[in-house]
């Protein structure tokens, strides 16, 4: 895996929302994602993980820093070049109820990318592509002409995945794709995402707050806190040897389905210190980075 090339390279990425220019939501973060890898991004709400994900697919403007996709600088792409990039970088959203157009049939929702990027030779080719996508995400042919409201949350998320796969992307941002789903459906969707990744050599940025699931699906993980990456490394390494006090606190708070463990659980509270404001991400072991004052 370590020889794989870096599909995504992020350097000094920053996003300040217009309302609070002095407090960037994402503050000077740098990382890379290898081709075919799943990179997990965890942290509490408001830490900047969703903002980061949206910048990587250029749904939000990058107000500072740079993002390279397969060597190409995509930070300021516009027009045709941006369109070309977007074919290769897709996103799956958290809320399967809000992210599908209620007035469109499933066929047309999935074909949206095919239409925009003119990926179909003919009407028949378009239908054929959509049918194949439906089958690969586990939807039945009769679902083609139905509307989103006729589906359960898990099925809607399958539609969202099929729509993202339609443009034959190389990179997908999965923004909390399972948080809104029931427990028994979450495992189905995670298995589907992994299966598609294997077959299509996809690269994922997986954003979530369910730490057990992030650890399961990710090769490497970055922990974000107040707009900064405070720790980054191999998933196992981060969970087995967390070094930053925030990571330690986060891991100590994950409830596990195991009453024995829960009875003896000791939470580690986290109090950010003032001197930690100034600091930098330092490599403490090969591939394991920690924010140090």
């Amino acid at each position, binding site marked *: 895996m370590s020889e794989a090339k870096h599909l995504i390279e992020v350097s000094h990425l920053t996003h300040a929302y217009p309302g609070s220019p002095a407090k960037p939501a994402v503050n000077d973060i740098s990382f890379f994602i290898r081709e075919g890898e799943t990179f997990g991004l965890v942290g509490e709400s408001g830490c900047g993980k969703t903002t980061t994900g949206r910048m990587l697919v250029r749904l939000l403007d990058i107000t500072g820093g740079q993002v390279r996709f397969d060597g190409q600088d995509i930070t300021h792409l516009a027009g045709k070049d941006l369109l070309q990039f977007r074919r290769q970088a897709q996103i799956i959203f958290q809320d399967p109820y809000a992210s599908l157009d209620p007035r469109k049939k499933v066929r047309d929702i999935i074909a949206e990318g095919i239409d925009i990027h003119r990926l179909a030779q003919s009407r028949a080719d378009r239908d054929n592509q959509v049918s194949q996508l439906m089958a690969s995400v586990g939807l039945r042919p009769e679902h083609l002409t139905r509307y989103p409201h006729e589906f359960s949350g898990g099925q809607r998320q399958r539609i969202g995945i099929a729509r993202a796969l339609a443009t034959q992307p190389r990179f997908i941002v999965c923004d909390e794709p399972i948080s809104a789903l029931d427990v028994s459906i979450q495992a189905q969707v995670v298995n589907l995402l992994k299966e598609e990744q294997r077959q299509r050599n996809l690269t994922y940025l997986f954003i979530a707050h369910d730490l057990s699931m992030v*650890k399961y699906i990710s090769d490497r993980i970055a922990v974000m806190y107040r707009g900064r990456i405070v720790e980054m490394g191999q998933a196992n390494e981060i969970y087995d040897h967390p070094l930053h006090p925030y990571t330690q606190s986060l891991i*100590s708070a994950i409830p596990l389905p195991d009453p024995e463990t829960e009875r003896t659980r000791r939470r580690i509270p986290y109090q950010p210190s003032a001197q930690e404001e100034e600091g930098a991400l330092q490599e403490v072991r090969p591939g394991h980075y920690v924010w140090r004052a």
Partner: protein
Amino acid sequence: MEPILQVNHLSVSFDTYAGKVEAVRDISFNLQPGETLALVGESGCGKSVTCRTIMRLLARNANIDQGSVLFRGDDLLKKSNREMRAIRGGKIAMIFQDPMTSLDPTMQIGRQIAEAVTLHSRVSRRDAKKRAVQLLHQVGIENPEKRYRQYPHEFSGGQRQRIVIAIALAANPDILIADEPTTALDVTMQAQILDLIKEIQKATGTSVIFITHDLGVVANVADRVAVMYAGRIIEIGTADEVFYDPRHPYTWGLLASMPTLATDSETLYAIPGTPPTLIHPAPGDAFAPRNAYALEADRIADPPLFPVSATHLAATWLLDPRAPQVQPPESIRLRAEEYRQKQSAKGASL
């Protein structure tokens, strides 16, 4: 000990345009004084409807088709609305998932708590205020005198849930019903709220019914667990029995489909399919179509709750003496194995 709440053969349905939805189907359980019972299940399994029935907060299209809800021996389903108003918030209090919808955005939070205090006891305004400040302190809000005068939007999500808990505690309820109180919160905040609920319970002896779909949360708070599926309780027992010796294939599936921090297999165990709609449920076990362990009997009749121990029941034909012996999924067997080892290690050290 006499249970504080007894739910007997309760069935609740809703009239909808699509037909009659049988949301809760013949469920029975007891709640002991001071214990926490978790109701677990997926959306639509009937866990919230059960609690709304206890609180008599059902929508107009709901019918209570059968059963009783005995609170200290008194049937709540026979109470007048007026009598219910004294019990609701007074004897039985409820907290909901989204604290923002249960707080009035235009009213100082302290006054909202004081209002709850005066509603259920004859106290002067000054005493109500004193009690409100004390409650704020109890739920861990710093500077309670100052924050008394602030509005909900000035608090974080976790703090708002603390305020909702303070309101629920205002009348010293005997039972606290918590409907997914931590689902909207981050893990660190969630852990703090769970600790708070446990602390309060220790201090006041309140019984808690905790509704959640998160088995990690259940393991953290519950003394006993009732697993619901398609309107029925399909397994009930102590937390240890349900987590370490589960008997229903649905419980197996739920536990096995959650990755623990140790899981590193290529694919997760997943229960196929989706929960059924409860309009005209088919005869037989509602879980059978998704159940890899389903027997012929499941398609004919809904299994009764078979006793596993004095405290543990499961509704699966696999427990019938005529049923074939089956092996649960590997991770469930490992779970039981690990538990037995830990227990025997404990026994040896005593």
